């Protein structure tokens, strides 16, 4: 869009005539391109407004269904089915083939979410509930077991290390002349 505007400006300047420059400054442009009426507007209240909006968006009047008017900022933008671009026919000759969409076709509000790199609404092998239960059930169970393992650790029984020679009395700097009774670290 900006490219088109720049070229028009450059063409107006390069015309070299007085009318080109004055046309640039007075803001008078060719009456082509999108006008204000083509842009999205407020929620349509009367059937004529609905028909006009359906025509603007290139939809049938019966198909056109705006978002309910709850003040959420949608205006008269049509509510299209929430299907992602993954679900569209892969073998049909779409105009931009990677987007699987034809030129001029009304774009879903969340189109940038439904492109083929992102959210996929294709049907799944199992139902959503079944998948959720399996995944969160497994994760919850593992977390619970790890928690129990932290609380009740179980390992081989250990005891403090026992040293010979009266608990290393001489090596620890004890008096060599002192007579000590035998320290027994075992029981038979």
């Amino acid at each position, binding site marked *: 869009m900006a490219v088109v505007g720049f070229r028009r400006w450059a063409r107006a300047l390069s015309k070299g005539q007085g009318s080109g420059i004055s046309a640039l400054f007075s803001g008078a442009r060719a009456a082509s*391109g*999108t006008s204000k009426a*083509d842009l999205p507007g407020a929620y349509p209240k009367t059937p004529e407004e609905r028909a006009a909006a359906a025509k603007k968006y290139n939809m049938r009047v*019966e198909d056109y269904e705006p978002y309910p008017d*709850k003040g959420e900022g949608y205006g008269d*933008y049509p509510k299209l089915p929430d299907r992602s671009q993954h679900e569209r026919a892969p073998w049909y000759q779409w*105009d931009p083939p990677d987007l699987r969409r034809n030129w001029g076709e009304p774009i879903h509000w969340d189109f940038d979410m439904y492109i083929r790199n992102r959210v996929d609404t*294709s049907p799944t092998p199992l139902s959503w509930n079944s998948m959720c239960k399996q995944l969160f059930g497994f994760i919850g169970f593992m977390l619970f077991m790890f928690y129990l393992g932290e609380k009740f650790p179980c390992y081989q029984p250990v005891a403090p290390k026992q040293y010979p020679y009266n608990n290393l009395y001489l090596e620890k700097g004890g008096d060599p002349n002192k007579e000590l009774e035998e320290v027994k670290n075992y029981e038979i």
Partner: protein
Amino acid sequence: MADYQEAPLATRPKTLDPNEYFNLSPEYRRAEEARAALRANLKRQYQMQLNNPHRKELIEDPALTRWVYARANPYPHFRATNKTSLLGAMFGVFPLFFFYYVFKTDRDRREQHIKDGTLERKFSLSS
């Protein structure tokens, strides 16, 4: 083709739906023809612009322009209803105060521990 089974992760294409071929009411047919006429008109416009040998600029897509405009300008159609104010408060106002209190109390407790000398600095990565 009567026993066509969809691939596990695909929806059934519209052209292979048996309801498209049997027991069609005239209204349904008319509706489909009107939709096909709209689609064909758009295709024709696009192809005329695409294959025009004198065209030097990009083909602009008015549907894209409308989409961008609609996404960028929700505020003229915004109204403060119960639901929108509630959502705004929940996402914009509440986290501010909530996180302030959470962080402040946590940091104060930690500071108190450090001053008392009771802060336990463990080596484990998880906590």
